[in-house]
């Protein structure tokens, strides 16, 4: 029993060492991240100690530990490759019983930077709220329990989702993780701003609930013990212990099933086919025939099915909504921020053929005239508009509603549509002129050696789009500054829309001959990496 535990802990250490020996780059990255983590841990330890005595310290630490636990729960979903000992199926050929195995794996999980960081944070939290000997005694137990709950939580989530994590879908999910972090950072940033202006007292209601949710309940117990309510402290500790036991049981059950049933990746692939077969026909009926409908259908399918395309779209949709709406919420917003949605979504028109990867040859084989190229590009722009047009309208209306500035709705909509048209036009043109590869693995969005090309395409295109919009912007300013401008501002909606449509048409017309003539060059450019 103990030998299993020692062996697995040693295995974890050797894996760590082996990984470090692999390359100096990896070693440097590991050491850098270790130093950074320890530095951060030391800083937050200091911060938490400084927090001692603050009236809301208990609320802060309870929330902190809850967020930490959430991080532990989400971590294995996004970084499945990060820890090889996370995959118990590698041990499936060894004669091991579930109970000792769970113990051994749990012990092995405690080795690493993550647990070290967690311990530092938990100790800091205890130091921030503990008053009196009893509280410190409870604190020691609380740190151990909370740490174990965090680790067991990560393990249970990983074991329950191992089928998903080792399959293609899991790898697709990992591509989306950067996005979750980006959007999450926006939300945290927004939350921190609110806290900065409104004070820590706002945390109390949330903390009152969370102090009964493990593993935050362990820290709740320390706080309760400090205030002398030993009954509550005991209950909260018991709750944490109970949660730990439950998690271990769930984990052991999944582990048992994983070790005794066949590898899930094939089963999973078989199961998802049934659903897909049915859902595919509905969309085709609504789309026009010929190349237009065919190319639109494929583009729209890729928005949903291709992880890279999906990540790009979700980022655009989220940021296009967050910027205008959150600014309006904070009262600092202008209604013109609503154009942000159109601008963000218009970016998706850029590097259309790069988004195809080297599969672009299938398109290239069917394009033999400028007309074909025009229809292909138009179909892609139309597919984009199917999502973008309603979304930009929705965001604009929402922003207007929050600011209550209804008279300006038509002009902002007109401006949005003009910008969208300009983005589509420049997007189509740069797609033909500056195509570049998007690597399908990992987080990179540009192949090595093509970074300059991507910058020219995106930033040059965006500047060009802004310049192309200048007439509508100037018209808006003129109407707004003139004496009886309000009576005429509605005109900007039809003018902006028509202008945007004309720009798109021109952009597609200009891009088509270049696309048709340069098919081999485009294919070479998008096939790198």
């Amino acid at each position, binding site marked *: 029993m103990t030998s299993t535990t020692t062996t697995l802990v040693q295995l974890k250490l050797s894996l760590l060492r082996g990984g470090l020996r692999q390359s100096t780059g990896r070693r440097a990255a590991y050491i850098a991240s270790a130093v950074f983590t320890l530095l951060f841990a030391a800083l937050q330890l200091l911060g938490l100690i400084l927090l001692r005595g603050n009236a809301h310290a208990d609320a802060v630490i309870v929330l902190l530990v809850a967020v930490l636990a959430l991080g532990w729960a989400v971590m294995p979903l996004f970084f499945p490759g990060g820890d090889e000992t996370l995959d118990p199926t590698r041990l499936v050929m060894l004669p091991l019983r579930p109970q000792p195995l769970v113990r051994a794996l749990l012990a092995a999980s405690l080795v690493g930077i993550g647990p070290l960081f967690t311990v530092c944070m938990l100790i800091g939290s205890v130091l921030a709220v503990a008053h009196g000997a009893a509280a410190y005694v409870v604190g020691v137990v609380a740190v151990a329990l909370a740490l174990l709950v965090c680790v067991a939580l990560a393990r249970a989530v990983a074991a329950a989702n191992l089928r998903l994590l080792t399959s*293609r879908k899991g790898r697709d999910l990992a591509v989306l993780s950067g996005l979750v972090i980006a959007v999450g950072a926006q939300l945290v940033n927004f939350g921190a701003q609110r806290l900065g202006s409104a004070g820590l007292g706002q945390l109390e209601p949330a903390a009152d609930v969370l102090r009964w949710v493990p593993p935050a309940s362990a820290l709740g117990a320390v706080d309760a013990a400090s205030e002398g309510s030993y009954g509550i402290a005991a209950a909260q500790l018991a709750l944490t212990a109970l949660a730990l036991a439950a998690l271990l049981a769930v984990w052991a059950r999944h582990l048992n099933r994983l070790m005794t049933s066949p590898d899930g990746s094939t089963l999973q*692939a078989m199961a998802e*086919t*049934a659903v*897909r*077969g049915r859902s*595919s026909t509905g969309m085709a009926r609504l789309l026009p*025939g*010929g*190349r237009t*409908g*065919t*190319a639109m*259908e*494929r583009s729209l*399918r*890729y928005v949903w*099915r*291709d992880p890279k395309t999906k990540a790009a779209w979700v980022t655009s949709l989220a940021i296009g909504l967050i910027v205008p709406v959150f600014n309006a919420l904070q009262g600092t917003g202008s209604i013109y921020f609503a154009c942000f949605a159109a601008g963000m979504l218009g970016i998706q028109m850029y590097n259309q053929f790069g988004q*195809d*990867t*080297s*599969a672009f*040859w*299938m*398109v*290239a*084989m*069917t*394009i*033999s*005239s400028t007309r074909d190229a025009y229809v292909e590009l138009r179909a892609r722009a139309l597919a984009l508009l199917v999502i973008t047009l309603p979304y930009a309208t929705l965001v604009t209306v929402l922003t207007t509603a929050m600011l209550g500035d209804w008279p300006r709705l038509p002009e902002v909509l007109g401006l949005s549509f003009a910008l969208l048209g300009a983005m589509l036009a420049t997007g189509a043109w740069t797609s033909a002129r500056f195509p570049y590869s998007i690597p399908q693995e990992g987080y990179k969005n540009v192949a090595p050696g093509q970074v300059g090309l991507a910058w020219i395409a995106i930033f040059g295109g965006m500047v060009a789009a802004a310049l192309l919009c200048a007439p509508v912007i100037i018209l808006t300013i003129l109407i707004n500054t003139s004496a009886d401008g309000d009576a005429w501002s509605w005109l900007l909606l039809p003018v902006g829309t028509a202008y945007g449509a004309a720009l798109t048409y021109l952009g597609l017309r200009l891009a088509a001959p270049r696309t048709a003539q340069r*098919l*081999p*060059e485009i*294919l*070479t450019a998008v*096939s790198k990496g």
Partner: protein
Amino acid sequence: MNEGARVGTAAVRIQGLWKRFGEQVAVAGIDLELPAGRFIGLVGPNGAGKTTTLSMVTGLLRPDQGTVEVVGHDVWRDPVEVKARIGVLPEGLRLFERLSGRELLAYTGRLRGLPGAEVDKRATQLLDVLDLAGAQHKLVVDYSTGMRKKIGLAAALLHNPEVLFLDEPFEGVDPVSAQTIRRVLERYTASGATVVFSSHVMELVESLCDWVAVMAAGRIRAHGPLAEVRGDAPTLQQAFLELVGAHDRDAASDLDWLGGGVR
């Protein structure tokens, strides 16, 4: 495959074809005429320039110099006529992998301008013949190598091309899938169509083709009916090794320490 019936008709006519990648010359002046209605093998070692040649012939790569005609039409000046008449299965390029096998065929067929009902009918038959019916709703990204080659072949055949270009169609394919692909290709050429495929596996070329072109270091070393190219050599493999000058390389004397016994 009557020898006399097709004299004078060339499926592909290549003249003075060159391609350089930086310093390296990939294709160094090829002149070649491929007869129509044959099962043609383009053989050569890795790096001989087979893929580069096929890419230039099918219009996927622009040559530095030279002309290519497919069934009498210039590939670069008359793409409308050429692209409708050829089917291609390239090597090392992706498919639209996030479509299911059936969706991929529906997409390709419709892009080629075939009516939807006809595309669906042909797709069903191709999927059946190629043993892909069971996996037709699975995404291509989840397909094995053999399945990918087969769905690529189906996509290349869908519009019933006159000339079919296949780059290493049997590379990494299991014996069962390989046999399926062979059967389909043999049926296709029996109807008078032309297949041009590249491979470095001589036994395969010898058993499938009736006309071969041997390539090495960017040049054509020999071409003609299989029997002619093979000449007096017992196998195409032997003939090929003599052609590229690798036959007299004797490895045994250098590695005399290798083998069982004393370490």
